[in-house]
């Protein structure tokens, strides 16, 4: 039988998203290490060598650079499928690129798993081979508003919101979800600022945020704009009452390296929490493995990339085949308990559109140089500090 299973990973490895792509490589390598070698974790496939279902076959990963361009993502996916003969594809950071990759995968009947794409539209296109284990923006946003509701109940000042989001798919989707939830749950949006991604300056935008002076600032920005936003806020003397961020840049180490001192008490939603290590020691150990490779802690993106690989490998193992259709069926039948992951999720189980609806987001607060889980209560290890600092 086959001695190796090839999985493709399509990421931006050059251009403005390169940093995420490069980090993703480390996350996948960590997962493959665990799968291919005998490790003592409560993760599927950790124990023993390789995939037992395929006679101990090992996983090999092939990377392709999308440069963040849908057309290139498409071409690379096709190349991975036809030339590298991959059995499945993981990807792809930018949701726009996921659109074309998932189309190609559909045509070739190869499963595609969004590790870190968060656009809700992705799983609503009636694709059979599309899967996403992690939450999408609506779920994330719902988590954020659940938290705000809880805070309000406690009497915190969280009535008015300022949305600050970039003009890409990610920013637009996030803002749409947040707007919808805000109206449903009776919040007032006092500023809804859509800005151009990678702008050279955000002064005008920050002036408007400052003028609106909302109770909660809700940014949806990548690292670059996140850094600029925080620096500009400091320079213009704007200190919001609270920040509740839609992850992305606000879960990147680089951002806190740059402007962490100005973010004491900032809150971001996330799908990963290192605090879980207290309850589930393997989380800490896996984090150490990852850190040894990358010099960084696992974060929102890398944890999901890691899990995507584990879940995919698990399905292939159960499918006992490298055939796309069989893997798809196995994926569709996935039933993984939360304990078997490194995430604070209830479980992994895909609905008919390929979305896992049981992946609960968490909210993390940046306190004293690290993240502390503050919501939901079953995962929380500390009380939120509100307002920030």
């Amino acid at each position: 039988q086959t001695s190796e299973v090839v999985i493709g990973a399509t990421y931006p490895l050059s251009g403005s998203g390169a940093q995420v792509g490069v980090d993703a490589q480390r996350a996948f390598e960590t997962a493959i290490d665990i799968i291919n070698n005998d490790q003592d974790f409560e993760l599927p496939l950790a124990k023993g060598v390789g995939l037992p279902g395929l006679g101990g076959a090992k996983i090999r990963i092939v990377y392709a650079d999308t440069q963040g361009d849908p057309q290139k993502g498409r071409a690379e996916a096709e190349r991975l499928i036809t030339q590298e003969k991959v059995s499945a594809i993981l990807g792809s950071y930018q949701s726009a690129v996921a659109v074309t990759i998932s189309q190609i995968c559909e045509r070739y009947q190869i499963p595609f798993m969004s590790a870190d794409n968060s656009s809700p539209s992705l799983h609503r296109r009636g694709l059979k081979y599309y899967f996403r284990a992690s939450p999408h923006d609506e779920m994330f946003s719902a988590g954020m508003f659940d938290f705000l509701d809880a805070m309000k109940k406690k009497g915190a000042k969280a009535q008015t919101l300022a949305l600050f989001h970039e003009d890409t798919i990610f920013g637009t989707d996030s803002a749409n979800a947040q707007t919808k939830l805000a109206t449903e749950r009776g919040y007032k949006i006092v500023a809804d600022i859509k800005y151009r991604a990678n702008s050279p300056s955000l002064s005008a935008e920050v002036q408007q945020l400052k003028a609106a002076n909302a109770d909660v600032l809700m940014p949806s920005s990548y690292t670059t704009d996140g850094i600029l936003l925080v620096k500009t806020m400091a320079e213009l003397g704007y200190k919001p009452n609270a920040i509740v961020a839609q992850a992305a840049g606000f879960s990147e180490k680089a951002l806190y390296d740059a402007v962490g001192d100005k973010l004491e008490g900032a809150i971001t939603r996330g799908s990963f929490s290192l605090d879980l290590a207290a309850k589930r020691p393997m989380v800490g150990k896996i984090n150490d493995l990852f850190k040894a490779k990358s010099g960084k802690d696992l974060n929102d993106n890398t944890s999901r990339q890691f899990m995507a690989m584990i879940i995919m490998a698990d399905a292939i193992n159960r499918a006992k085949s490298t055939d796309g259709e069989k893997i798809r069926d196995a994926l569709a039948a996935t039933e993984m308990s939360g304990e078997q992951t490194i995430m604070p999720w209830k479980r992994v189980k895909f609905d008919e559109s390929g979305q896992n609806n049981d992946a609960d987001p968490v909210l993390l607060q940046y306190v004293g140089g690290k993240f502390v889980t503050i919501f939901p209560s079953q995962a929380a290890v500390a009380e939120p500090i509100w307002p920030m600092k």
Partner: protein
Amino acid sequence: MGLLYGLIAVGLALIFGLMDVVNFAHGEFLMLAMYVTFFLFTFFAIDPLLSAPLAAAALFVLGAAVYLVIVRFAMRAKANVGMVQIFATFGLAIVMRGLAQLFFTADYRSVPNSWLGGKTVSVAGIFLPQPQLFGALVAIAAFGGLYLFINRTDFGRALEATREDPGAVALVGIDKNRVFALGWGLGGALVGLAGAIMATFFYIYPDVGASFALIAYVTVALGGFGSVFGAFAGGIVVGLVEATTALILPPSLKSVGIYAVYLLVVFIRPRGLFGSM
């Protein structure tokens, strides 16, 4: 902010305007200057303000080298010299980004806290961030210096003459390669200065140049090629327009304001505000 665009633009103005050469790697020059500043800070704890001259010197060498090694040969083209230069420097930009990623990794960096970083002065209720303020001062000084240099010295005149007809300056004993190499070096040095100041309030990564390149070109063109003062004025106009359009249009469209102003200006004055060519 406008003045900073101006400062970035002025390096361009020098290379692009005064020499009639397009440098598509301008943003990458800026990127490199920011990295130089960053590394000087992290490894030698040299404050960006002090390392600015070092960054300028490094970029001077780079600018001159780029001219001598690449642009000089691109200029040999008989027809469409402009396009050949555009693409030679475009290729160079890609190489520089690749090299930056290879050596500096794709990580986002930033100079955490310089002496000025994050401090603000409040003048009559308007907050002025110190780094920008300082940048503005440096920009004004650089503009002034360059303006005098170009308009009052023989080098400035030689540069203009070389742009007009590189083949003819030898008739009066000018070495065109020397003049151009110096011009590129100076352009680079100005970008070096700009980069050092930028580094105090901007993030740094291999593709950072892309954020600035277009706006810098528009700034130069708005002011008018061949005019140092134009680049200065262009920078101020762009800064003002940026700040004001954000009040009328959604911020994601704020650059539309700048672009529209550019179009408006050149439709009325086809050589920009102060252009001579």
